[in-house]
């Protein structure tokens, strides 16, 4: 059996500045060893440990989709020791990727269902993976309506702009893009916080409609009551959590909340499950 702590060696293939303030960059990695990409078979919603020998590891949601081959992609916010170092690395540098880790959005269970994807800020990465997966010609027909509500602080903080523009033009996905505020007169999309936009744009709940949510704590806190109001039952609200993680495989203990280990039993839970788990922040 392989050592689950050992990262696959990868080379940085490209680095793109993802937001105007340069606090986020998108890294595309290619695997150095043949066969590793296949071993790294993942699903949307999973994460990986980006492993930089000499600095440490950092858990990051996978932004690429399983339908995209030849690379794996992460969009990383510059915040701590490892991410600061990563932001200073160059194309061609060698590091490691360990995973895939955690569970995924339960897309197999959502076949035939309508899906509303609600995201904000830089938590949009695994949702991007999900959208790319759902829109793949091999997959699209297996799902019902798809709505996407995505908010950022201002137009400069919106991730994956080029792709959003393309999705906007398609008629098999309803995009509802919003910013908290902007003084840009050419902004033609929504203005307002995600919960407000959700209230007016999200489809009404029914037996066949599920919400997938990922975002900062405040956005989640205020969007939950909106979904309640729209009639979404808690087993149809799917959320992704973040916690400090180290091992990523449910062994080192630090991401333990209640009976669950966020890195292995999560990070994806339904709101129904979360109701029975302590919320440490409070």
């Amino acid at each position, binding site marked *: *059996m392989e*050592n*689950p*702590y*050992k*990262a696959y*060696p990868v080379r940085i293939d490209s680095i793109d500045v993802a937001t105007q303030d340069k606090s986020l960059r998108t890294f595309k990695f290619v695997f*150095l060893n043949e066969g590793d990409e296949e071993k790294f078979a993942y699903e949307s919603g999973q994460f990986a440990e980006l*492993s*930089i*020998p*000499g*600095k*440490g*590891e*950092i858990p990051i949601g996978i932004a690429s989709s399983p339908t995209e081959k030849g690379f794996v992609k992460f969009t990383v*916010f510059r*915040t*701590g*020791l*490892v*991410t600061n170092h990563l932001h200073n690395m160059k194309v061609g*540098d*060698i*590091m*490691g990727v360990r995973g895939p880790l955690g569970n995924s959005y339960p897309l197999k269970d959502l076949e035939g269902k309508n899906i509303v994807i609600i995201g904000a800020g830089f938590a949009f990465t695994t949702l991007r993976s999900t959208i790319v997966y759902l829109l793949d010609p091999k997959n699209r027909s297996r799902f019902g309506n798809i709505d996407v509500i995505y908010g950022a602080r201002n137009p400069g903080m919106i991730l994956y702009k080029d792709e959003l523009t393309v999705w906007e033009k398609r008629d098999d996905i309803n995009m509802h893009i919003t910013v908290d505020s902007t003084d840009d007169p050419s902004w033609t999309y929504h203005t307002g916080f995600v919960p407000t936009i959700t209230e007016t744009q999200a489809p009404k709940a029914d037996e066949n409609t599920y919400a997938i949510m990922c975002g900062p704590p405040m956005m989640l806190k205020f969007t939950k009551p909106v979904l309640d109001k729209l009639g979404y039952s808690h087993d149809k609200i799917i959320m992704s959590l*973040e*916690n*400090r993680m*180290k*091992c990523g*495989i*449910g*062994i*080192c*203990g*630090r991401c*333990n909340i*209640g*009976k669950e280990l966020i890195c*292995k039993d999560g990070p994806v839970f339904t709101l129904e499950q979360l109701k*029975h*788990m*302590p919320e*440490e*922040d409070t």
Partner: protein
Amino acid sequence: MKVINIDKEKWASGVESLTSTYRLFGPVKEDDSHNFKELKKGELPDLAYGNSKLSPKSAVFPPSEAMFTYSLDEKNENHHILNDVKKDYSPRAVLGIRPCDAKAVSLVRMNFDTKEYRDPYWMDAFEATTFVGLACDNPCSTCFCTSTGCGPFSEEGLDVLLVENGNAYIAKALTAKGEKLMDAAGFKTAGDDSAIAAKKAAAEAKITASIETDKLSEKVIMDLYDAPIWDDISFSCINCCTCTYACPTCWCFDIQDENKGLSGVRMRNWDSCMTPLFTMHGSGHNPRSQKKQRVRQRFMHKLKYFLDKYQKGIMCVGCGRCVQQCPVNIDIRTVSKKMNDYVAAS
């Protein structure tokens, strides 16, 4: 199961014979307390001891352990790529482990050996180890193993149980691993275990302390979590790692890269839920920034989360180390009683 009689006079030569096949670990006296150490050549485990200050978990789970090495030198062809560390997983034996600590190893195994992942370092060390236990004739005043599903003569997690009987040990070889070790030591004289039952009863009768857990499984996690007991329980805590490091069932660890010049080692080190750093995010946000939250996490994990998750009892074997060593006398028995007695307002 085989019962063997070991004449105490033959113990030393038997241990000596083991050294050709096994790396030996055992209690060694240092200053005024015992700890489990790898025995030097010719050194015998000091079996005249109560229990060790730190638990023998370090025999399979060292406080610091190298996981990988790497080079940061870009001139090196394999720079920034993790290399495995050569480790010695040749057969080893822990001699004189107390039954509580052996049970702890089998509880901790559930964490390191799961259906999805096998922790290679812990498991390789575990599988290489033969656990030779020593029954407790004289439990300490802080021992409460009999109320944790364990006991001074418990056999869970052991390959051999030694029971002191005058000038001899009655050895119960409980597993194939245990029989192999007895063979390697040359201990072959068939014995009689009829004396054990009375000794066991006598030892158990000496244990007067207990932990109340009978109602814990029926409690609702969120009720205990929100119970107004934690401010008082946690007030005195200084958030050191004494309890977690001494505890045989605490397994949490941290992973750190330690560099020296252009080479380095990825290490794993014991960690503790008592420290704020344990849960601090890279962003500086800390979901468990308060002492109360951390103390609650430790006791909820031991006495409720683990119980609910595995249905194998609490994550405590009653060794009493945390009770003896806590600098401010936070006592898991008191905490458990408060949890056990707590009834949520309806």
